[in-house]
């Protein structure tokens, strides 16, 4: 079973990404957690009655997707996955941060696609609590980087800070001001 990093640990993960051109039927009671492409998810939402207890599908899209149509549904979404098409394409970092920061999204936020271990701390700080790396990348390396995460000037989406916050009051007594 594929493994991902989730909420600070490495876990097995059976979630399936349904591709855009894939026409696998999706039943309203899902056995396995799946992520539907944004366009299909939006279509399904309009025709689907969801009763309590049923497992909802998550939705996935690329970092540069237009998510305006999704905003009203965010509180009903258990999981959102953002695909990175190249580890050098950082659009997804901003989209993830936006979902958490501007829209208060509180469900699972997953990053997947072409991602390398070294990006795990950045992803976490932008609000991604689930991270799937590209094939060949070591989750253990990524975990050790997350655990080694130390001080930063910005904090994270959960607890943002300005650079000198907490520092000036304690330091102003001892720092040599020249």
């Amino acid at each position, binding site marked *: 079973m594929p493994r991902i990093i989730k909420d600070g640990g490495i876990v097995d993960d059976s979630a399936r990404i349904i591709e855009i051109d894939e026409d696998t039927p999706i039943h309203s009671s899902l056995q396995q957690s799946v992520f539907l492409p944004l366009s299909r998810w939006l279509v399904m939402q309009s025709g689907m009655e969801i009763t309590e207890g049923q497992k909802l599908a998550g939705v996935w899209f690329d*970092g540069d997707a237009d998510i305006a149509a999704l905003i009203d549904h965010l509180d009903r979404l258990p999981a959102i996955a953002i695909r990175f098409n190249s580890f050098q394409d950082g*659009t997804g*970092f901003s989209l993830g941060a936006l979902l958490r920061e501007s829209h208060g999204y509180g469900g699972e936020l997953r990053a997947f696609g072409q991602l*390398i271990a070294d990006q795990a701390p*950045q992803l976490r700080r932008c609000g991604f609590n689930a991270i799937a790396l590209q094939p060949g990348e070591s989750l253990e390396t990524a975990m050790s980087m997350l655990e080694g995460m130390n001080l930063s000037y910005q904090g994270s989406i959960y607890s943002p800070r*300005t650079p000198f916050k907490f520092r000036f009051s304690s330091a102003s007594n001892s*720092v040599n001001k020249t």
Partner: protein
Amino acid sequence: MYQYDDYDRQVVQDRVQQFKGQMSRFLNGEIAEQTFLPLRLQNGLYLQKHAPMLRVAVPYGVLASTQLRKLAQIAKTYDRGYCHVTTRQNLQFNWVKMEQVPEILEQLLEVEMHAIQTSGNCIRNTTSDPLAGVAQDEVADPRPYCEIIRQWSTLHPEFAFLPRKFKIAVIGAHEDRAAIQLHDIGLRLVEQPGVDGVGPSGVNPLGFEVWVGGGLGRTPMLGSRIRSFLPQAELLAYLKAILRVYNRHGRRDNKYKARIKILVKALGIERFKEQVEDEFKSSSRSDHLLKPDELAYARSFFSAPNYPLIDPLEGEALLAEQRQQHPDFEQWLTHNVHAHKVAGYAAVTLSLKAVGRAPGDIHYRQLEAVAALAERFGFAEVRTAQQQNMVLPDVKKSDLFALWQALESEQLATPTQGTAADLVCCPGADFCNLASARSLPISAAIQQRLVDLDKLYRLGELSLRISGCINACAHHHIADIGILGLEKSGREFYQITLGGQSGNHSKIGKVLGPALAAEAVDGAIDQIFSVYLKLRLSAQESFAELFARLGVAPFKEAVYAQDH
């Protein structure tokens, strides 16, 4: 100047360790070459023609004498004895060994320096006015804000993989000595206009005028004003909003269309502004605002030094005498010495444009000498300038003569600042892998034509800049005379642009005509000088003014006539 606390040290130390790890994973094959590339670029490490190049950040151009000594030691131990001042106030070592880079980074950390984000598609070193804090025309000192931006932009998790590089400049003076309109974001400290215009100085709250979307390269553009007043508390929140809009909507399909200037142009400044303001409103929380205590703390590092009380008149009298006796000294005073906000003091340009040297290069012995001079004639601080020179910011006027003599013996007193011989030149094809053509031989040939100081001074203030390719690292577009290296079927050609300007009246230069072969360039430049001297209405008419009056035609005629 700013001093690291344990927090800063830890942040840089962590990055050095991380980079060390990345390098060893690369060397043992765990990281592929193309994956390592952006990782090493984010740490300022390039692979150049002959050897790797390490670019070291000089935050907003401020260096302490201890840092200069360390840089000298690095130049001596790990390089060929010298380093190079860039047009973005940074320093480059052109001959380092890859395996030694982690070691160099550890050495740098000892003096609170690093190479973080000096390259790559991320937020680069924030640049500023080389006269920050001492300029006479300053509303407020930009350095505290530069430092806040330096920290905020360092290893920002959201902005490490932008569509393209991102440059921010901050000034606090009326005259723009940092070319803010040519930056992705340009910030100018201003007082909040009162109900009836600008209130009395020091009374109205400070904030920023914000410019966005400037840049050179293939499509040079001047920035547009997006805010005429941004309260200083909101600085970081607003920067974040601009960068988030850019990171989400900037183009990634074409490297030449990826800078923020293209996005601003495509949307138009009004729509771009709308998006930024929406983003700003929806994502800003009080946690993102700079608190008054925090701002005061940042400012405390840059409070004016205790200038010993001196009698300015005494210094003036002595100077007048020395000027008379030493015409060389007089020339240097006229060109390389600048007004200071404190009476009796001056700021001094240390010229890195000695004839026969590559512009901006400095030898380790000179670095050591500058360190000693900064301690003897100032407060142990030096600045780097975008014009590839250095500046001693706080020299007593009564010390100028002694300083001049010392600089003369170090070849740092070439009295040409602001003239055509103060030319700015990138390393070009002699070092740079991206180059289309060599720039250094062109610069040397032009320098040779300007060794006669009388001729040079007759030309007056005139800027000349040479870039070895369209990346425009020497900012040739904003020079009175710009030269751009091109390559056509394996041969080097040079395109000349005229009429560019930087500062408050920034303008992009106009192409003179077809590109010239290397051997024809210095002659053509000489023709341009002659046309200017011949046609100007008086010695007071600057090159820019004449160009505004007559345009490209008379120059074109002169340069291309000799071809036929």
